[in-house]
C-alpha cells in the first residue's frame, strides 16, 4: 500500500484533506475494497478510543446495508428514466406550441382583415350586406403583401355600386350616402386619368 495514499486516506477520514484531493480519493475509495476495509478499520479505532460501549465492533451492519442497497436503484439510474420520460413526452410540446401560435396568428389576421375598411369604401367585405343581386367578390387569403398599384382597382363597378347605394338610400343616412358617392366620383376620374396617361404614353412612343 502506498504510504502517501494511506496518509491521504487518514486525512480524508478526519475531513482534513484539500477538496481536489478528496474528489480523487473518494473515487478510488468507492472502488478499492482494500482501501475501504482500511477506512472501516479507522472507524473501529475511533469507536474504541471513544469507548462506545454497547456498540458491537464486529457487527455486520455495513454488510447488511450494502446487501439491502444492492436491491435499490442507482441514483443516476433513477435520474435517467426521468430524462427519458421528459424526452418521450416533450417532443410534441414545441410542435403543439408552434401550431397554437400559428392558429392564433391566422385568427388574428382574419379578424384584422375583417376590421380593416376596404380601400374603395367605408364598409368592410364581411359587414357589407350581400343581396342576391350583388356580385360577391372574394379575395383569396394571402400572407404576401402585393405590390401597391399606382391606381387601386375598383372592386365593384362604380355604376352598379352607385345604383346599389341609391336603392338602399331609404335605410342609409344622408351623410354616409353622400360620402360614399363622393368617394366613387373622385376615384373614377383618377382611374380614368391614369388610363388616359397610359394611352398617351403609348401614342407618344409610337
Amino acid at each position: 500500500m502506498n504510504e502517501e495514499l494511506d496518509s491521504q486516506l487518514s486525512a480524508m477520514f478526519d475531513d482534513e484533506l484539500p477538496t481536489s484531493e478528496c474528489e480523487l480519493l473518494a473515487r478510488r475509495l468507492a472502488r478499492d475494497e482494500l482501501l475501504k476495509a482500511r477506512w472501516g478499520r479507522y472507524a473501529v479505532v475511533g469507536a474504541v478510543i471513544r469507548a462506545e460501549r454497547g456498540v458491537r465492533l464486529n457487527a455486520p451492519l455495513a454488510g447488511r446495508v450494502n446487501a439491502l442497497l444492492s436491491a435499490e436503484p442507482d441514483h443516476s439510474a433513477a435520474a435517467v428514466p426521468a430524462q427519458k420520460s421528459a424526452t418521450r413526452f416533450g417532443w410534441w410540446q414545441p410542435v403543439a406550441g408552434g401550431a397554437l401560435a400559428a392558429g392564433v396568428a391566422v385568427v388574428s389576421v382574419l379578424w384584422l382583415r375583417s376590421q380593416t375598411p376596404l380601400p374603395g369604401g367605408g364598409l368592410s367585405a364581411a359587414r357589407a350586406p350581400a343581396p342576391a343581386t350583388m356580385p360577391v367578390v372574394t379575395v383569396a387569403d394571402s400572407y404576401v403583401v402585393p405590390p401597391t398599384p399606382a391606381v387601386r382597382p375598383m372592386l365593384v363597378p362604380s355604376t352598379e355600386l352607385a345604383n346599389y347605394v341609391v336603392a338602399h338610400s331609404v335605410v342609409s343616412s344622408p351623410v354616409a350616402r353622400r360620402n360614399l358617392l363622393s368617394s366613387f366620383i373622385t376615384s373614377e376620374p383618377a382611374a380614368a386619368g391614369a388610363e388616359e396617361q397610359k394611352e398617351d404614353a403609348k401614342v407618344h412612343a409610337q
Partner: protein
Amino acid sequence: MSADVSDLSLVRRVQRGDKGAFDALVLKYQHKLVKLVMRYVRNPAEAEDIAQEAFIKAYRALPGFRGDSAFYTWLYRIAINTAKNAVVSRDRSPIEYNLDRNSNDESNDMQGHMKDAETPEGLVLTDEIRSIVNGAIEALPEDLRTAIVLRELEGLSYEEIATAMDCPVGTVRSRIFRAREAIDRQLREVFEGGLGRAEELG
C-alpha cells in the same frame, strides 16, 4: 479546511450513482449512529436495526441532499426520527412490531445475523477488538497517542491539535496517520485471521 469536504465528495459520488461511495459513508458512521440510537433503545440488536433503517432512508433521500448542512448532521436527524418512530411503534404495539419484522424475509435474514452477533463468540470478538486497539494505543509513542486521542476523543481539528501540541499542522497529520497505521497493523492481522468473518460481514 472547510468542514465536511470528504463526506461531501462521497455524497456527490453517490448522487451520481456510485453505491460504493455510500458504503464508505456507512463504514465511517455506523458505530456513531448505533451509539446515537442507543440513547433511545437499550438493545444493541434493535439499535442496529434502527441504524440500518436510517441508512437506507438516507440513501433514498440522498438525491435531495444539497449540502446545506454537514452530512452527519443530516444523517443524525434521520436516525433520531427513525429511532423515535420505532420506539413509539414498539410502545404502541410491541407484538405488531415483532410481527412486522417477522413478515419480511430480509428481516428474518437480518435477525439471523443478529443472533450470530449476539452469541458469546460475537461478544468475544468485540472484546478482542477493543483489547487489541487499546493495547496498540498504549504502545504508541506519547506524541502519536496524544495526537490520535485529541482527534478521536476530543474531536479537535488538525489546526487545534497543532496549537495544543505546539507543532505544525503537517506534523499533526503525520502523527495521526502513523498512530493509525500502528494500530491498524495489529488490527488487520486479527481481522484477516480470527476476525475474518467480522471483516466479511462488516
